[in-house]
């Protein structure tokens, strides 16, 4: 049954975790404990781990994880199917982010399935579509240049804190219509919310974000402007204004959804660039192919996963799944599917164009995809113009963050 977004209620889904909570319909031979996102083997080199899954795991298996048990889809074809059939693989209740049950809200639009989903996307699509984000190009370029100005003459930086984190936060503030002087505050909130080791710090960060967003919404209602917060706060699809819960759930989702993914993507790609000076030169020598470069880098360095809940019993590749089961599309693994991308670990800017899964597909495909592509393109162009030769500081041991957004924890660079 479709949920009522104006009156959110917490989902009543059993959360299975651990070896003693495997439903009886799951065949024993399909049960694995892969350690995806948390295990030592994964964290040693997450992308190599996910590329190797095609040799080591069945196409569909049931993973008993540290936080949740779920079916894992690693084939490109299977993920396309699941993501394109929301009536079978639903998003309702599929986002594990914890919320206060007494003041519950939905993340909009990701937790809303068709037919209501489109109503929300129509509000912001004009700003997030290719033509919309292109209007931000000059501003993004300036933000990138400002950050590079601060480090270019130093001969070194810690990439994640000096560029990877602040660039997407600045751009986020611009597109949302929020003031740039909030940048460092937003950075610290994002770090605490998404990477704190303890729940109290996470809770405090979420409270700060909540309070700030609520006051920003009130301000934009009183004084509308062209930013996304104002667009959402003042939206009235079919003449009906969005409720406070809808507005809040929409804005807070953009905050959580947009920041860490671009951050991790930049960090992964800059690590690879720093280790591959010949490929950096190739990118510099082919300025007209920048869009193909961006697309291939996004395929090779996808950072996240996409979860769904079975809305009905369904059989796939002879595997019987039941209503209420959870599935995870292992998007980076799907982008390494050798039947679609031969020699998948090779970065090849001349690959024939295929649908990549960096941003998923289907109705819930990432609304920030065009913004992310543009940010990556500008970051590459501006960085390589100023700092064309750089490497990882000698003696650095690259460590990866455990969790659902994959990237190196720190990246010290020298030039």
């Amino acid at each position, binding site marked *: 049954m479709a949920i009522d977004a104006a009156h959110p209620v917490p989902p009543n889904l059993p959360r299975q975790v651990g070896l003693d909570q495997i439903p009886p319909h799951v065949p024993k031979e399909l049960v694995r404990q892969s350690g995806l996102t948390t295990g030592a083997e994964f964290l040693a080199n997450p992308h190599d781990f996910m590329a190797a899954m095609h040799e080591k795991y069945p196409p569909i298996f049931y993973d008993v994880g540290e936080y949740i048990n779920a079916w894992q889809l690693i084939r490109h074809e299977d993920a396309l199917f699941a993501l394109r059939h929301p009536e079978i693989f639903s998003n309702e209740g599929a986002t594990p982010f914890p919320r206060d049950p007494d003041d519950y809200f939905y993340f909009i639009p990701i937790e809303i399935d068709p037919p209501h989903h489109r109503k929300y*996307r129509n509000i912001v*699509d004009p700003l997030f*579509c290719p033509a919309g984000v292109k209007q931000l190009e000059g501003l993004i370029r300036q933000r990138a240049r400002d950050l590079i100005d601060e480090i270019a003459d130093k001969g070194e930086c810690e990439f994640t804190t000096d560029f990877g984190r602040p660039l997407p936060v600045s751009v986020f503030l611009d597109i949302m219509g929020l003031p740039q002087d909030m940048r460092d505050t937003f950075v610290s909130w994002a770090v605490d919310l998404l990477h704190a080791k303890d729940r109290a710090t996470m809770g405090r960060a979420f409270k700060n974000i909540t309070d700030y967003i609520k006051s920003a919404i009130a301000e934009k209602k009183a004084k509308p402007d062209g930013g996304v917060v104002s667009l959402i706060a003042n939206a009235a699809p079919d003449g009906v204004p969005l409720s406070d819960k809808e507005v809040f759930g929409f804005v807070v989702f953009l905050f959580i959804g947009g920041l860490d993914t671009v951050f991790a993507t930049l960090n992964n790609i800059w690590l690879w660039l720093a280790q591959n000076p010949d490929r950096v030169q190739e990118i510099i020598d082919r300025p007209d192919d920048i869009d193909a470069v961006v*697309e291939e880098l996004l395929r090779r360095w996808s950072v996240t996963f996409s979860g769904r809940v079975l809305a009905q019993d369904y059989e796939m590749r002879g595997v019987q799944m039941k209503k209420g089961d959870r599935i995870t599309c292992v998007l980076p693994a799907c982008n390494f599917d050798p039947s679609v991308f031969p020699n998948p670990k090779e970065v090849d800017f001349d690959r024939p164009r295929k*649908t990549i899964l960096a941003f998923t*597909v289907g109705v819930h*495909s990432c*609304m920030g995809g*065009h913004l992310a592509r543009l940010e990556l393109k500008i970051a590459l162009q501006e960085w390589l113009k100023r700092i064309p030769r750089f490497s990882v500081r000698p003696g650095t041991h690259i460590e990866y963050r455990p969790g659902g957004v994959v990237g190196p924890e720190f990246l010290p660079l020298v030039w």
Partner: protein
Amino acid sequence: MPQVTYIEHSGGSRTVDVPVGENVMRGALYNGIDGIAGECGGAPSCATCHVYVDADWTARVGGPASEAEAELLQAAACEVKPSSRLSCQIVMSDQLDGLVVHMPEAQY
């Protein structure tokens, strides 16, 4: 405002206003017309907004706007014809007022 007529594979059709500068894929999505998925949002990086431009309009609309569009079209779910286009790459103008596009049986 210019109008576009979208004809379903089953024969039904709808005519809607699509503003100058907007693309034909988005015209369908904003008006709740099924038959065009447009799931990448016009990157273009998928081929789920495939349409056949009506024979009376192919000369004015022209062929693929870029190499990327031509390449992506090869991955379309239904037969690719000389009149095939990705509708996200057809931008509305006054010259295209009255445009008729036919939607394929499936987008994926």
